[in-house]
């Protein structure tokens, strides 16, 4: 499988060879970590080392880090865990939850569930047109019964980085739990949980070259959550289930690499982003970039591209089938009755047409500088094919919906 055309690192990343080797190595130390005999010692050592690597990446202490089966479980755990730790079946005042409209489905769907089943009140805050949620808007949305606020650190579609520090400050003294979905940030930008000040922070190994199905949750010391998965006392009683030892060790190896290469990668991806912007603007002059104008507020590996008048779905199909290039879309025609349009882009104020014309480009560890030219050439070619198909149609026809 060639990797030259892979421009979808935000969807997932290739597993690095360090992570694969670590899995193979750790799988040989097969004893159950809960067992009491000497055979367990190497297993314990493996787990400790992995935990330390993750703590370094997240910026926390080892007793604050819990392993899970991925970002989605971590997000579920944080929100349900806060809500259910103080839940009493008696009918009382309903709890109020604040989230951003930019969140990933693993937050949105949990909140929808809490709303449906437990009749929580929910506020969904729209970002500004650059994809940023301000601390002021969180402050304005607070109610006396607000129990949880959940705002992501970096958005997966446009790469906008949220002012987590400021929001933490707003919530800190109000006894409101602040959860942060860090899945698109941890391993990609500098993250220091203690400095950022949230109560819980989720991450996922497959976004930083670890295997899929492994992640974790930072829980600030002193904060308690009802477990999502009750069981045999693993993870200090907070997350049941025999530890996914080899997976965790594999993720640990990826985390170690991510820590080591973070600065270098940030610089490299900023360069790529710059090249992408320049070459695309030159080859497809109508192109528009969604997201923060201030590039320090955007994860440098992520670029959201809108080419007005072009249906991104068709563009992506051509890139995939003619050039072996992978990108993500802001919309999908999911069935005969509905067209699903990115809730992220809509919340930023893009029109339906703009959303349909948007694709997400995300680079990563294995992207080479020459791949950028290959990519932008392919986009220019695909745009010309699409223009050839749509040009003959009279203008007013094209623009009517």
């Amino acid at each position, binding site marked *: 499988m060639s990797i030259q055309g892979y421009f979808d690192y935000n969807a997932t990343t290739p597993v690095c060879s360090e992570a694969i080797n670590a899995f193979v190595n750790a799988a040989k130390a097969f004893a159950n970590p809960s067992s009491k005999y000497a055979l367990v010692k190497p297993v314990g050592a493996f787990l400790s080392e992995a935990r330390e690597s993750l703590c370094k990446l997240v910026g926390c202490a080892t007793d604050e880090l819990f392993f899970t089966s991925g970002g989605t479980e971590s997000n579920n755990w944080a929100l349900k865990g806060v809500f259910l730790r103080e839940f009493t079946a008696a009918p009382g005042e309903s709890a109020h939850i604040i989230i951003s409209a930019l969140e990933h489905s693993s937050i949105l769907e949990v909140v929808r569930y809490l709303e449906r089943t437990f009749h929580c009140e929910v506020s969904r805050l729209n970002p500004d047109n650059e994809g940023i949620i301000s601390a002021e808007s969180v402050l304005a949305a607070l109610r006396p019964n607000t129990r949880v606020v959940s705002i992501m650190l970096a958005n997966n579609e446009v790469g906008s980085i949220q002012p987590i520090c400021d929001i933490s400050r707003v919530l800190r003294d109000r006894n409101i739990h602040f959860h942060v979905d860090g899945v698109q940030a941890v391993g990609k930008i500098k993250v220091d949980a203690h400095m950022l000040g949230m109560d819980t922070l989720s991450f996922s190994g497959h976004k930083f070259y670890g295997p899929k199905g492994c992640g974790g949750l930072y829980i600030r010391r002193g904060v308690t959550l009802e477990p999502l998965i009750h069981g045999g006392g693993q993870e200090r009683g907070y997350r049941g289930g025999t530890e996914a030892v080899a997976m965790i060790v594999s993720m640990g190896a990826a985390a170690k690499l991510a820590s080591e290469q973070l600065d270098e990668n940030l610089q490299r991806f900023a360069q790529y982003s710059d090249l992408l912007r320049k070459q695309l603007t030159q080859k497809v002059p109508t192109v528009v970039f969604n997201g923060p104008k201030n590039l320090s507020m955007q994860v440098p590996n992520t670029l959201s591209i809108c080419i007005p008048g072009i*249906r991104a779905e068709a563009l992506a*199909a051509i890139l995939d089938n003619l050039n072996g290039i992978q990108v993500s879309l802001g919309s999908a*025609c*999911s*069935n005969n009755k509905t067209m699903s349009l990115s809730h992220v882009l809509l919340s930023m104020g893009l029109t339906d047409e703009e959303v349909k014309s948007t694709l997400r480009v995300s680079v990563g560890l294995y992207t080479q500088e020459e791949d950028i030219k290959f990519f932008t050439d392919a986009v220019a070619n695909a745009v010309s094919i699409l223009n050839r*198909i749509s040009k003959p149609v009279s203008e007013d026809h094209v623009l009517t919906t």
Partner: protein
Amino acid sequence: MFNDIIVRNFSNPTHAAELVQSTNTIELGNPVCGDRIKVQLNIQDGLILQAAYAAWGCATSLATGNVFCQKIQGTSVADVCNLSKEEIDKMLGDLEPAQHHCLEMLHNLFAKLQQTFHA
């Protein structure tokens, strides 16, 4: 993901063109997703001499336009009118559920063409 028929037709749309001389035009839009297809025909003595299209939409609907033109160009109107539902169903190959409304568009194109002659 797309089957080979769809890929071939959207990545190399042989019938994407504007006819200078056309006798009939069929237009179609999908209100849900906003896809549009416009087909121009040059029909002489019951024979479809030329079919060309323009489209704005998803890859499958772009392919649909081309499949339609390719199928009917060089054929008699009578033959086209005799195509069965089953034959049309097969023209786009195996489709994923989300691609099925393009098959509807294809059926609609044939229906419009037939209407043109039975009207």
